[in-house]
């Protein structure tokens, strides 16, 4: 299945636990975490994550080089967790997430990042199953909601909904709303009573 593998590294147990909780809720992902720098390097090799999320304090001049070297090998996307002390963006990271965002903002930003790096990649083509988020969007499509309405309901932007919809079409091989509704009913995402047909 097309789960996304995310590796998170921080010395703070609370950050790890909290991020794990938020990420698992928003996407179909596997989370691996590490609290030690030594572990982190081995873990990148072993797990070949799609994304690596590093909190600021775990990175220093010495290990940065090694992380970058491995980064080139396994092609994870490095995301930096920004706290108050980190005003400048370090050059090695691809994305920045601020620790002080609220839940919806955080979920939204992470979905955006995932979509940015995964849409159109082989993972999408080979995977047949829809992610949790995609299933929930498909359910709303079948219920007759517009992208904007779906965005409002799920606390994500219209743009994100549209990107999800593109991926859903591609994965299912079904392009029209009525075709996707048939799929949703056949797969129990929605009942005939609910859509009133």
């Amino acid at each position: 299945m097309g789960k996304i593998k995310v590796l998170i590294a921080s010395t703070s147990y609370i950050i790890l636990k909290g991020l794990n909780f938020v990420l698992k809720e928003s996407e179909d992902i596997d989370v691996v975490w590490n609290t030690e720098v030594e572990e982190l390097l081995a873990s990148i090799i072993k797990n070949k994550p799609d994304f690596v999320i590093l909190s600021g304090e775990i990175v220093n001049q010495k290990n940065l080089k090694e992380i970058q070297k491995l980064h080139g090998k396994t092609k994870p996307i490095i995301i930096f967790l920004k706290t108050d002390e980190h005003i400048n963006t370090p050059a090695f990271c691809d994305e920045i997430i601020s620790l002080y965002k609220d839940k919806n903002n955080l979920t939204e930003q992470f979905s955006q990042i995932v979509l940015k790096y995964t849409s159109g990649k082989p993972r999408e083509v080979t995977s047949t199953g829809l992610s949790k988020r995609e299933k929930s969007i498909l359910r709303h499509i079948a219920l007759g909601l517009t992208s904007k309405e779906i965005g409002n309901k799920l606390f994500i932007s219209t743009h994100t909904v549209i990107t999800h919809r593109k991926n859903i079409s591609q994965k299912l091989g079904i392009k029209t709303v009525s075709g996707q509704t048939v799929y949703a009913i056949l797969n129990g995402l929605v009942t005939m009573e609910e859509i009133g047909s």
Partner: protein
Amino acid sequence: MITADKKMADLIHLNYLLVSVITRFDIRLGFGDKTIAEVCKENSVNTEFFLEIVNSFHDKEYFPGKHLQGFSIKLIIDYLSKTHQYYLTEKIPEIEQLIDQMVNKCYGHHKHAHLLRSFFKEYKEELISHISREDETVFPYASEVENAYLSKKESKQKQISQKGYHIDEYRSEHNNIEEKLFDLKNIIIKYLPSPENQALCSKVLSALFILEQDMNDHSRIEDNVLIPKVILMEKAIHTTNAI
């Protein structure tokens, strides 16, 4: 490439789907060893036009645009309308019947049996309204443009200018119709529960594939031959009447 000196019978051996195409020219089977040129002459069919149509139908790489644009709009529309009739009176009823049988025999006890039927019905209605819009609005407009263009009469051309209607407005509809057909195939191939009668399913599928191929060719002629031709004439009319 198919040429005028080839035997008509060999044409059908080459691609049996062309039987339905020659029918649109009112050419009937039983042509013995006659060549394409001979059969066309007997049936008062424009041989050059016939060749362009069968070549582009048979070979997707054979781009009909340039050559076909040399023929009159009347001739092109005549062929396109005949094709519409073929869809409406033969292909659609045939597929509809097959789908009915398939629903009854394969998915009779399945609680979602009628989903497929209503999806097809939706598709059919969309197709019918698209076709009638072409037959009743687009094609008559295209002939008017051609008449006005050829007549070189100012009064006629003014009428066209004043309509303010443009041919390319209807082009996007083709995508929707193609997409629905594509979805229908995938629902049957991938997502319906395994059928109790596989043979029936394969009949439905091959009918859908044949229809799709035929319609792709048809829309290609509309989009790449008819529309550009009308646009050129519209432009010529609008510029001569601009002042």
